[in-house]
């Protein structure tokens, strides 16, 4: 046992027991469950129609009737926040899913075959990497018009290089280890090595990157909607709502922007915490 391992102390307790003693993790998990719950069921349970105008209550402060108040057109903010969960969560989820799947496939192919495949993939990744995600998203909007589809597709591509770089480095290190050579000498097939040994080994890396990516995707998509290039009013996307609440902010009704903003921050925070803990745990398990 090396000094480093000694310094890290005893082998970590089983995950379930460790999690029970980690209030932050529990809180983050609860937030996530709540947000996902809202995204799945929220619209069904919302107190009002999110697009219904209530002329009697324009920019009203929170009250019993409207717990989060109403916006400048007299729409119920709570209902809109609930309705906005689905588009606000779905975008980042798609971005992360697509970029991770593409990225892992390219990375594993690069590491596995090396040579020309690796060279071409690396060059491609370099080029994509040179175009910042937001710029690519704006370019996509210019091409295909406003809406969520173009930015989501653009970000899925823009987030791929970072996945490729991380996973490729991990895969190369893993493939260089003797146990892979031992499996090959046994005559174990390439696909079996890939799915039974290589991918599980890379899972902590992939997971960590996916959660970080989710945070950034959520921020980027919200920014695009906020700028008016993504989801279009009257949609109740959180980014759009924050933008819509801006004038009220200056006239003294901050809650129209604050509630959706708080939800974005909370969601990203919760995903980051859960991701970080899961990764530490997965790494400890492998060591």
């Amino acid at each position, binding site marked *: 046992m090396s000094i480093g391992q000694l310094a890290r102390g005893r082998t970590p307790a089983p995950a379930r027991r460790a999690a029970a003693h980690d209030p932050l993790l529990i809180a983050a998990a609860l937030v996530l469950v709540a947000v996902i719950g809202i995204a799945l069921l929220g619209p069904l349970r919302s107190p009002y129609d999110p697009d219904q105008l209530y002329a009697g209550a324009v920019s009203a402060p929170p009250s019993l009737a409207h717990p989060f108040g109403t916006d400048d057109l007299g729409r119920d903010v709570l209902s809109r926040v609930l309705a906005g969960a689905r588009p606000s969560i779905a975008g980042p989820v798609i971005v992360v899913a697509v970029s991770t799947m593409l990225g892992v496939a390219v990375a594993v192919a690069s590491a596995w075959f090396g040579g020309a495949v690796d060279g071409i993939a690396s060059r491609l990744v370099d080029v994509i990497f040179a175009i*910042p995600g937001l710029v690519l998203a*704006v*370019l996509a909007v*210019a091409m295909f*018009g406003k809406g969520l589809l173009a930015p989501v597709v653009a970000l899925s591509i823009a987030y791929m290089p970072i996945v490729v770089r991380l996973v490729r*480095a991990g895969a*190369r290190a893993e493939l260089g280890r003797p146990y892979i050579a031992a499996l090959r000498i046994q005559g174990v097939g390439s696909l079996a090595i890939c799915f039974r040994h290589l991918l599980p080994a890379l899972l902590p890396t992939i997971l960590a990157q996916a959660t970080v990516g989710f945070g950034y995707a959520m921020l980027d998509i919200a920014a695009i909607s906020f*700028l*008016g*290039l993504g989801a279009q009013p009257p949609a109740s996307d959180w980014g759009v709502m924050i933008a819509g609440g801006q004038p009220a902010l200056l006239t003294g009704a901050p809650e129209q922007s604050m509630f959706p903003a708080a939800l974005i921050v909370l969601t990203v925070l919760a995903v980051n915490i859960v991701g970080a803990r899961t990764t530490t745990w997965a790494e400890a398990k492998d060591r």
Partner: protein
Amino acid sequence: MGGIGSLLTEAAARKDLPVVQVLSLLLVTVFVVLNAVVDVVIAIIDPDSVKSRRSA
């Protein structure tokens, strides 16, 4: 804000393609050149890094 930002978003919203093209290219150039400059600075601090960085 009166900077490049508002110009680019507005151009994208109005499909002003020449503006979007040029601004994208400008940003990409800045991005690439800046990263290259940093690479050179790092190579001066740590000459051994040059060989390994590409594979990282």
